[in-house]
């Protein structure tokens, strides 16, 4: 494939670009969705194509095509140059581009069983059996889904990069929905929208759906008759997957350097963080230690090189509550004067690489969920995300969870429904006073992070363990 890349890159450079890089991808995906013991959707997809970037002066152009004929590859290079040239019609400040080591290497996600080598009937049967059982146990609707991706990626640049990577991702989940009088309640496992990691079929097998079917069916029905989550200011205990989404929304997006620089202002928004406050701004309590680590084996956003050829890294984002790092690429890092973080990825060959969260996780503490509950006099323990909303500077948020449990005097007293909480990012994180340890630290994965125009879906990781947040506003309803 590298010869295809060379043709396109040479064409861009010959046209007048001062730098060019390109990726050829072979992307395979398999997606299976089931409901009530029947398959609702089974789709297998395979795509091949090239995406090429050209830098002309300070302006970028990107062109992609499915067509890998010689003529088309040459045209792709030329078009990327012409698009970059057109960008200069509305130009501004010079945009520097950071150097990174020129690397020739290859990498494959460690895995036991390639999910595409496993018979699809095994995967289908898992979902049929799981949803059938949940339905028989009283679920109004029992849902299940599995998704697998096998992405082969060849990257080359006019500076001499030649990198091959094969990234394999697997995951899915099951849910029980109960419909009552004018309301629905749902319970999901391992988390809402499924849990995803890098790895093969073994990732899904490790979830052991069969051990959670009864609980999901029972809890979704029990929620229908459960009391409403109380309203008020009290202690909030978050289960790991909800905390993972809290990290994603109120930390992960806020530390994206392209947002901080205003490059996403019109759509995704900006950030409440200002670069002048790096290494000074208090993001949260001393317990808050966040790292962006693209090297964690098995986490969803683990790779060896990003889509600009920069090596994957572990970067401190928040240390003992102080903001210390950002997510960056070669252009944004150069503008901000920081080292390129190797955090630029694209959603397929047809999309422009952009700053993306890697595994942005909260390092574990030294407590446990059991200890946190025992230490709580008046609070709510919330599990599994149901809704999320945050403003465009990542400050004011409101989350809803599938289930809540009233905690009184160190004990779980009662299940409550429609639990929600709201807060302001630094205040909320500043109120984190207990954090579970490594035993409960899970590499949660988010497979549906939307960003960019044209729209891109990113796969991000968020290691987290349960934690407690004091004095949180709980129970907001319309």
């Amino acid at each position: 494939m590298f010869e295809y890349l060379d043709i396109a890159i040479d064409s861009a450079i010959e046209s007048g670009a001062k730098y060019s890089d390109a990726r050829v991808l072979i992307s395979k995906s398999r997606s299976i969705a089931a409901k009530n013991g029947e398959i609702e959707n089974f789709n297998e997809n395979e795509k091949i194509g090239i995406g090429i970037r050209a830098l002309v002066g300070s302006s970028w152009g990107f062109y992609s095509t499915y067509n890998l004929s010689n003529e088309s590859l040459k045209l792709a290079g030329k078009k990327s140059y012409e698009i970059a040239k057109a960008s200069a019609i509305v130009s501004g400040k010079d945009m520097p581009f950071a150097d990174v080591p020129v690397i020739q290497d290859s990498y494959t996600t460690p895995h036991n069983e390639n999910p595409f080598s496993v018979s699809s009937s095994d995967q289908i049967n898992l979902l049929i059996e799981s949803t059938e059982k949940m339905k028989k146990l009283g679920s109004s609707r029992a849902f299940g889904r599995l998704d697998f991706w096998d992405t082969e990626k060849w990257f080359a640049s006019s500076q001499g990069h030649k990198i091959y990577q094969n990234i394999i991702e697997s995951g899915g989940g099951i849910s029980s929905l109960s419909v009552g009088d004018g309301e629905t309640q749902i319970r999901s496992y391992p988390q809402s929208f499924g849990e995803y990691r890098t790895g093969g079929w073994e990732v899904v097998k490790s979830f052991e759906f069969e051990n959670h079917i009864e609980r999901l069916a029972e809890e979704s029905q029990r929620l229908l008759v459960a009391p409403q989550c109380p309203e008020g200011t009290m202690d909030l205990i978050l289960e790991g997957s909800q905390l993972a989404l809290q990290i994603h929304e109120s930390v992960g997006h806020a530390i994206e350097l392209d947002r901080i620089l205003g490059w996403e202002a019109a759509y995704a928004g900006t950030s409440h963080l200002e670069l002048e406050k790096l290494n000074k701004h208090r993001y949260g309590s001393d317990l808050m230690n966040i790292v962006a680590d693209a090297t964690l084996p098995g986490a969803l956003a683990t790779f060896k090189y990003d889509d600009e050829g920069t090596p994957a890294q572990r970067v401190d984002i928040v240390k003992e509550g102080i903001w210390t790092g950002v997510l960056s690429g070669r252009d944004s890092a150069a503008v901000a004067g920081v080292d390129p973080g190797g955090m630029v990825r694209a959603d397929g060959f047809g999309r422009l690489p952009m700053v993306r969260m890697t595994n942005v996780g909260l390092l574990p503490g030294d407590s446990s969920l059991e200890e946190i509950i025992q230490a709580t006099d008046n609070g709510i323990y919330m599990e599994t995300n149901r809704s999320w909303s945050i403003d465009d500077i990542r400050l004011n948020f409101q989350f809803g969870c599938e289930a809540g449990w009233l905690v009184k005097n160190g004990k779980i007293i009662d299940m409550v429904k429609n639990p929600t909480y709201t807060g302001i990012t630094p205040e909320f994180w500043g109120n984190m006073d207990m954090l579970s340890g490594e035993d409960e630290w899970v590499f949660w994965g988010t497979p549906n992070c939307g960003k960019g125009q044209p729209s891109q879906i990113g796969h991000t990781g968020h290691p987290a363990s349960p934690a407690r947040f004091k004095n949180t506003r709980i129970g907001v309803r319309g």
Partner: protein
Amino acid sequence: MKIWEDLLQDIEKNIPSGAECELKMMHSKSALTRFANSQIHQNVDEESADVFLTLHKDSKTITISTNLTALKNPKDFVSRAIESLNNSPLDKGWAGLPKSSQSFNGLSTIDESTPDERANKVNDFVSQGKKMNAAGYCSSYINNYFVWNTNGLNSSDSSSSAFIDGIFRTESSAGSSHRGGILLSDIEAQQAGSEAAKLATDGENPEDIDPGNYEVILGHEAVSTILVFLGVYGFNAKSKIDGMSPINIDEKQFDDQINLLDTPEDDDSIGFKIDASGSKKRNLEIVKDGVSKTYFHTRRTAKELNTKNTFHELFGWGENFGGIGTNIKLLEGNVPQEEMIKSIKRGIYINEFWYCRVLDPITQVVTGLNRNGSFLIENGKIIKPVGRLRFTQSFMASLAPGNIVSVGDKSRYADSEFGEGMLKVPALHLKEFNFTGGVSG
């Protein structure tokens, strides 16, 4: 288009006997020029050709998809589909293929816009607020869609669309606007820029106000978001089947002034005249004088609910997403926005919502925020810009009988949380809207 004809010929001869088969191809040229900090920083152009093959045999169904390059050998592609078909369970929801009489041919040749033309539109927008920071995009799309099936249906259609969407920012405010149309030349970039610049300027130094129930005027983008949520989660027949839709047909669920249509047959409508199955779409009444009239159906949902298909299958979204209206129009009323403002004793103007998420599907209680232009109105006048507010509000209740004070007299294509070009709407004046939090939480 030759690539389609060649593909069809190659696939057709490899289809197993006795199988029902549907072949689709979407050939697209998409371009999007993005600007931030008042300069173009991302500029992309893509050509794609995606192919979907569905086989149904012995009560089993399989869909596999690829693009023209990955397809390589049509015989192998069909063989792969047959292998997967054999591994598949029985498909009780199979609703068959459209008949040949449903065929439609709307294929046409449409000229692409150039990167320079898009950059010039961006320039037109950016130049309207010279001292402010501009960000947004200008996009253009050409899509050619082909569907063939073993019932003899052979449909094709072409569509084009173009949009500009942007904001201006000051130190303390932002204002946005949007335009959409069939061709890039239709797009009034200067006008959109001028509107966005005025909102940003008028919105400087906003003040926080207490949350609570307010009378509101919702701008085009805010109205568009309410309607797209009701379209995707409410009128989608799949939501009804899953027990999660608030919509009940023939019930008066909305105010008398709410008249909602889906108008794929109108000349100014953006998008294809056929749905993903290749069937001709029809104009449809969704809400008539506040009464819900229909769900959006696909073949499968129509079969499951034993009713007529409304031809709302979307290409590439998968069978399990249900039907989506893509040409929704809220009929205009007769009240200019200035008159709406004059009639309000105390209320808020909201230009745009942001990050809206459903808390409860059946009541459509949604939480989200305002942005890009919000103003306090008192005694018939705009008094001051207001800061960020969080609402937690049932979108059904927001349009319920008695809550619509008036409907605006001018509609336009408006952006929404689910993308561009789907809705053409006027502004709305609502009696109550529930804000549950301010900037301090």
